[in-house]
């Protein structure tokens, strides 16, 4: 096992730059998720690390070997594809054994490794089947088993859960997390699903238009986004951004004054606050501001409110038994430790 290091990767498709100088380091045994909207270049970066595509500039290191120009077979990686890419003309057993046979492994080693992978993935009883006889979830297990059977230094996964239905995805997500925590393989995992990223990652690398915009632990990416893109992309509903006036080094919402970490460049500042970090009260409270309720959506574990404060729309969540209807005014108290401050022109977070 070993880490991955990519340096200054640039990639052009025709005249379009899909990666504009990406550097990223993944520690040994770490589980890193590459997260971003479709077209942000995350899959291209993964394929460059796998050797399925070649960067126009920059280097790729796996462990302490530079592999930038090596073909995929020499990089000691394994990859799980979105469509699983199980060989349809081979049995599950031969699929899992494929990489070992290519290495000319001994019959005992093949058997031992296939058994180990099959046990890990709970597919011992499917070994003699052909892929056409498997369900989507079973194919997914075979694909992961085949990747782990070769004991790769690095495991690369390209949206492996996106072809499963919602319920199965939830199950497999937890199982994958347990499994990879056990096998301790260095893993780079690509997804556009922010819940998946939050759930699985040791660290999340958020990408947007060919660049890395934030690289941190899930909870910090969630609570301290570096810009409005990250705050708006992660979380459902996304982070609220309220444009407030700055008065005497503090931000003002009605009578409520909030102190800022640094003085912002302009006369206004953006307050970033998650819907669950706005406590709602029917009566006026100290440290709160009023907002009018427009829509009330009961979602089960909570109510999702859409409110307006001075023509700005914002969302808040309240307990399911909260008694409220559209047109009423609520008093919202932002939780002090959970606020972000951003520059409204650049969208970047103010330094703390």
């Amino acid at each position, binding site marked *: 096992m070993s880490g991955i290091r990519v340096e200054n990767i640039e990639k052009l498709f025709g005249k379009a730059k899909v990666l504009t100088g990406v550097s990223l380091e993944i520690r040994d045994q770490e589980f890193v998720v590459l997260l971003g909207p479709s077209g942000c270049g995350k899959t291209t970066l993964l394929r460059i690390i*796998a*050797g*399925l595509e070649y960067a126009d500039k920059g280097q790729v290191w796996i462990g302490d070997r530079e592999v930038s120009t090596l*073909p*995929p*077979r020499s*990089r000691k*990686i*394994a*990859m799980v*594809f*979105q*469509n699983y*890419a199980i*060989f*349809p*003309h081979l049995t599950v057993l031969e699929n899992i054994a*494929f*990489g070992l046979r*290519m*290495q000319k492994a001994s019959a005992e080693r093949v058997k031992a490794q296939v058994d180990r992978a099959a046990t890990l993935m709970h597919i011992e009883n499917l070994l003699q089947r052909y892929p056409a006889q498997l369900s989507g979830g079973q194919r997914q297990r075979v694909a992961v088993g*085949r990747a782990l059977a*070769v004991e790769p230094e690095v495991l690369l996964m390209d949206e492996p859960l996106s072809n499963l239905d919602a319920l199965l995805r939830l199950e497999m997500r937890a199982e994958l997390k347990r499994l990879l925590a056990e096998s301790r393989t260095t893993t780079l995992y690509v997804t556009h699903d922010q819940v998946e990223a939050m759930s699985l990652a040791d660290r999340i690398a958020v990408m947007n238009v060919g660049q890395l915009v934030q690289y941190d632990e899930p909870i910090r990416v969630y609570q301290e986004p570096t810009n409005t893109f990250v705050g708006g992309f992660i979380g459902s509903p996304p982070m609220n951004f309220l444009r407030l006036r700055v008065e005497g080094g503090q931000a003002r919402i009605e009578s409520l004054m909030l102190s800022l970490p640094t003085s912002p460049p302009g006369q206004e500042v953006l307050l970033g606050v998650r819907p669950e970090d706005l406590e709602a009260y029917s009566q006026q409270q100290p440290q709160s501001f009023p907002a009018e309720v427009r829509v009330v959506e009961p979602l089960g574990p909570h109510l999702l409110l859409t409110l307006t404060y001075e023509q700005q729309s914002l969302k808040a969540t309240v307990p399911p038994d909260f008694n409220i209807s559209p047109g009423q005014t609520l008093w919202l108290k932002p939780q002090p430790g959970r606020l972000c401050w951003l520059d409204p022109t650049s969208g970047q977070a103010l330094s703390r």
Partner: protein
Amino acid sequence: MFSLNTRAIYVLASLLALWVIVPIFLIATLAFSDRSSVFAWPKGIFPQHFSLQTIGFFFGVEGVGRAIRNSLVVASLTLLFSVLLGAPAGYALARYRFAGADVYRVLILMTRAFPLAILAIPLAVQFIHLGLYDTPLGVALVHTALALPFAVLVTSSLFLGIPKELEEVAWTLGCNRVQAFVKVVLPLALPGLAATAIFAFVISWNEVFAATLLTLRERTLPAFLLGALNDSPLPFRFAGGFLLIVPALIFIFSVRRYLFTLWGIANR
């Protein structure tokens, strides 16, 4: 209302199928009837007098044996050339999207509207210079030119239906490009390649225009039949027509299950 429509559709579909099947059936039954049925009019639906008389007469005509042999040689050469040239081109088309791909597909669709065979005229002049005139090899080359666009189109559909990821995963598991092709792509493509080969064979077997223009003594079966058509009796025509259809029929019935898959692939 819905069921009425459904019924109308089935009637329509049956009519369309009959459109193709009836003439074939007619030719086939007449080829195996005796002389009197051939001349009867209107004809019955089923062969009233099964007989090998007509077909036997046909094989007895001088030159038929040689024409069949020539046709076999030409069609086999066409099959060989088409697969050897068409499969790599189809693979390349399938694996690398490029701007001209759609133009190319339209051009192939258009060949149906093109009197491609008429272009054989300038070719004939050049073949005389090259010594290919009136040889099976010469005809096979022209037939390859006719069959090749189809071979490329069908094989590219075929390879498009084999996800690129299957190859890529083989690369990551230790294969080089040739190994991945041989171990993964080829086993999956084999039945489709076989169908393509037979298709090329059938196209060559039925081609008459170029074969007529480019041969004089070494006629293929359809060219021979065309030449003999105006001054030959009806039974001869029916038996000849039947023989022309046989490879296409064998083709369709042997690969019919596979064809649906192929069509599904071609529609992706």
